[in-house]
């Protein structure tokens, strides 16, 4: 790939998706875009760039999608799932003991690894949740990504990143080189298409929201707006979980970090000022693609 081609792609991605690649991500571009170029009958990245310059809108959309779909894996970063097992669930078992129901939202559900990791955590709790009604709602902007999540079928490579081997054997069925998560775990997760830039109040209220590695793609004002709306979607004594590289500091007063629990937040009593969906930012429609 020539330096001008790289610069062209960098600028295009920045303009279309907010994705800000540093100057040394040639390998990332090659690994994501070469298969796409080949599929389109092109020889290399240079050809691909030429075709985009000639104005192939559909190709541009495919390139942006290929580059902004974050890779994800089961139990990504570990710590959020420790929070879930050690802090969130013990507290929920007490505070929701009366109604015995719990709603969890994976706001960047992507290809399913996060919602299914949570489902596995709940399954491992066994009898403690007997008689409970637990909903896990996984949303993502991309229907294609949601389809993969619904199917729950993963490559050998995907199931080896983050998933202990005992859990693989226990919760997946092997079909050749592929592994499908068991129907009882799949049934615990509902899938919905959703753009975080738009109103999401129709989803109802949640006790726990996982919103990891998606807000990093938005600008500051959009982040603040989304935090405001998340705060009105989560129960006052509920939890918000952010990604390892994300924070609310300087962005919102609507959530406060929990001491010694990195990435875990609680809504504040004083909610942020009402914030409408950031419709002016709809020019960045691909953003909510990324994430977990």
């Amino acid at each position, binding site marked *: 790939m020539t330096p001008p081609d790289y610069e062209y792609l960098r600028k295009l991605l920045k303009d279309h998706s907010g994705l800000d690649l540093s100057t040394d991500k040639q390998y990332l571009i090659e690994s994501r875009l070469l298969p796409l170029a080949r599929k389109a009958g092109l020889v290399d990245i240079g050809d691909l760039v030429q075709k985009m310059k000639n104005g192939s809108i559909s190709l541009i959309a495919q390139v942006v999608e290929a580059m902004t779909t974050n890779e994800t894996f089961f139990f990504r*970063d570990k710590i959020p799932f420790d929070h879930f097992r050690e802090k969130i669930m013990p507290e929920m078992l007490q505070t929701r003991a009366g109604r015995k129901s719990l709603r969890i939202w994976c706001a960047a559900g992507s290809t399913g690894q996060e919602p299914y990791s949570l489902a596995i955590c709940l399954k491992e709790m066994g009898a403690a949740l007997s008689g409970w009604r637990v909903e896990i709602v996984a949303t993502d902007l991309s229907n294609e990504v949601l389809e993969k999540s619904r199917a729950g079928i993963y490559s050998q490579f995907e199931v080896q990143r983050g998933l202990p081997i005992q859990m*693989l054997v226990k919760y997946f069925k092997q079909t050749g080189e592929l592994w499908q998560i068991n129907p009882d775990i799949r049934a615990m997760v509902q899938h919905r298409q959703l753009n975080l830039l738009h109103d999401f109040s129709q989803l109802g209220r949640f006790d726990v929201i996982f919103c990891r590695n998606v807000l990093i793609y938005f600008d500051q004002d959009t982040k603040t707006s989304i935090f405001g709306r998340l705060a009105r979607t989560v129960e006052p004594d509920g939890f918000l979980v952010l990604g390892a*590289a994300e924070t609310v500091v300087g962005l919102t007063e609507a959530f406060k970090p929990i001491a010694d629990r990195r990435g875990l937040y609680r809504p504040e009593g004083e909610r942020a000022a009402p914030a409408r969906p950031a419709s002016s930012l709809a020019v960045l429609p691909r953003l909510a693609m990324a994430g977990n």
Partner: protein
Amino acid sequence: MKTCLVVDDSGVTRKIARRILEELGFDVIEAEDGEQALEACKRAFPEAILLDWNMPVMDGYEFMVQLRGMPGGDAPIVVFCTTENGVDHISRALAAGANEYIMKPFDRDIVAAKFQEVGLVQATLPEAV
């Protein structure tokens, strides 16, 4: 520094594994089959063993059974690393005392993830921005 014994009859595989494990901070020793691996363990137990299944002289499964029968032989963490990727093999290995299981082909990310799984490597997280 922790030591990892790499047991594989393929020199290429041992070389790739050595490079990955050294990057992860291990001292690496090598064995070409189960018998050589047992000899190495009689001298000193490594903290970790990356173990192929199919090898001449003594295969990985037989080696692990003998290892687990040795006094102190339950200490090393055994991670299988093999093309045997069927549930039957995986279950058999776990029942006989394997701690983790890598299905070949493998890369640095998979080895790092599996070694984190069994506490041999610390996870690193990005700084908050």
